[in-house]
């Protein structure tokens, strides 16, 4: 059963030190505001999970809150590498995180299996791929009908999923549209879930097959307009590509990074996000 909370409460009530947590979003609807709140609350020793860890994962790692990362592609999409992630892996700054590395297909299957209540997923994957040798969570299983050797991976069941969505209604049902990523599976596979939304409306008026998460699948809803910035929310604001490109510079230097985090995250509140999207509203182009 969902509760409407401030983001401060949504985070503190649901995420605990040492939890396994995902902040999912596939380019679209990435829950930046939630990750920043976690950083402000200094909730650490986290195992962070995501198919495409990008800027916020670079930030969590650089702030020393991460013990381990489970992932399939760690990059600043379209820009380059994640420099704080690299600094951790290559130089152990501020700490060397453990990694469990997968392919996208494996992670997608693992979230699906988690949502479907299964302990593992089978798929046709990793053929000839060397991750098999370095990740002990990649095993094989034999099809009892054809004898084919299939790949097996454990289901993902994070303690907490954070996602950002377009709308919640007054009961707490959540609507997601556009590029859906694995957000539905992330919420359904996790023990708890916190959803930031652009808007709270009385009632949805939408296509019958729209992706809606019923209120009883969600732990907390927090109204944070702009909460995906510099990612985007279809129907609300565009992706701030320039900010993604700038991140490469910020993250390239430990000191620049630290002072940027102090100024833009530690000293801020979730309210700042609505300012950040002012020039990115969709109607600007139309």
């Amino acid at each position: 059963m969902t509760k409407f909370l401030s983001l401060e409460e949504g985070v503190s009530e649901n995420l605990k030190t040492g939890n396994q947590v995902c902040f999912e979003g596939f380019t679209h609807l990435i829950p930046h505001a939630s990750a920043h709140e976690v950083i402000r609350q200094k909730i650490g020793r986290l195992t962070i999970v995501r198919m495409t860890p990008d800027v916020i994962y670079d930030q969590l790692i650089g702030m020393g809150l991460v013990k381990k990362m489970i992932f399939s592609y760690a990059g600043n999409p379209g820009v380059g590498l994640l420099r704080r992630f690299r600094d951790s892996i290559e130089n152990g700054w501020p700490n060397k995180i453990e990694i469990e590395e997968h392919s996208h297909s494996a992670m997608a299957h693992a979230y699906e299996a988690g949502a479907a209540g299964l302990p593992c997923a089978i798929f046709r994957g990793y053929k000839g791929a060397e991750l098999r040798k370095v990740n002990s969570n990649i095993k094989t299983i034999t099809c009892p009908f054809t004898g084919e050797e299939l790949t097996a991976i454990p289901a993902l069941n994070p303690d907490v999923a954070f996602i950002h969505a377009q709308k919640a209604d007054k009961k707490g049902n959540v609507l997601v549209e556009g590029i859906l990523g694995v957000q539905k599976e992330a919420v359904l596979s996790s023990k708890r879930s916190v959803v930031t939304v652009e808007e709270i409306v009385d009632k949805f008026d939408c296509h019958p097959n729209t992706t809606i998460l019923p209120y009883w699948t969600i732990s907390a809803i927090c109204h944070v307009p702009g909460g995906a910035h510099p990612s985007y929310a279809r129907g609300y604001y565009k992706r701030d590509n320039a900010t993604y490109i700038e991140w490469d510079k910020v993250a390239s230097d430990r000191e620049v990074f630290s002072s940027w985090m102090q100024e833009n995250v530690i000293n801020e509140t979730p309210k700042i996000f609505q300012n950040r999207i002012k020039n990115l509203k969709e109607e600007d182009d139309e």
Partner: protein
Amino acid sequence: MSNNYTPDEMMTIVASRALKNDDVCFVGIGAPSAACNIARLTHAPDITLIYESGTIGTAPNILPLSIGDGELCETALTTVSVPEMFRYWLQGGRITIGFLGAAQLDKFGNINTTVIGDYSNPKTRLPGGGGAPEIASSAKQVYITMKQSLRGMVEKIDFFTSFGHGSGGKDRRSINIDTEGPSLLITDLAIWKPDRISKEFIVQSLHDGVTRDMVQDKCGWKVKYSDNIEVTEPPTHLELKTLRDLNERTKIANSRKDTD
């Protein structure tokens, strides 16, 4: 026809020519995305472009910076979840061409985008495989695009992110992969195809003005050439204009609006 083009432009345009109107392409960001869209805007208007963010049959007016830009969804036939994309569409065997890039590539089309150096203590930690391990095995064919360099085209890759032809010959079949694998390599200097038997990449065509020495100077293995080597046709005026217009539209769209 124009002589006034960069090797990057040449690479993208040559890749676009390899695509057919009835292809279903799993598109990566960068050169593959540009190539696929040039094909769509020139000789292959009905080509199906699929990005792993779930967008099927997309027709972006500008090149996406990321694999999940809004433009991809707005212009798509439909957008599905990422699990569905990898399960029903890629693993389901519906992709005819998977496009891959590489940080390191060997002569058998094996690709590394994971680490330079040792996996546990890498010299350079790269982004990792993403969709590549299963694109390499599930797409009917794999096309590879990359700019040649001695660091990139190496005798031995540091990590097998995705499997091409292994050690060559029938290696794919021996590990029960029944798709064709890398069947085309397009660099900024040449067009390469695997030898029918050994599966080693062989230069089929040198881009206009490129010499064998230039290719070897930027390739870490001993380059082999086809007996019937050709010269790649330079970009046509239409191809070049289409690519440059696309890049210009993209640049404008991605520039920051500092004031209202």
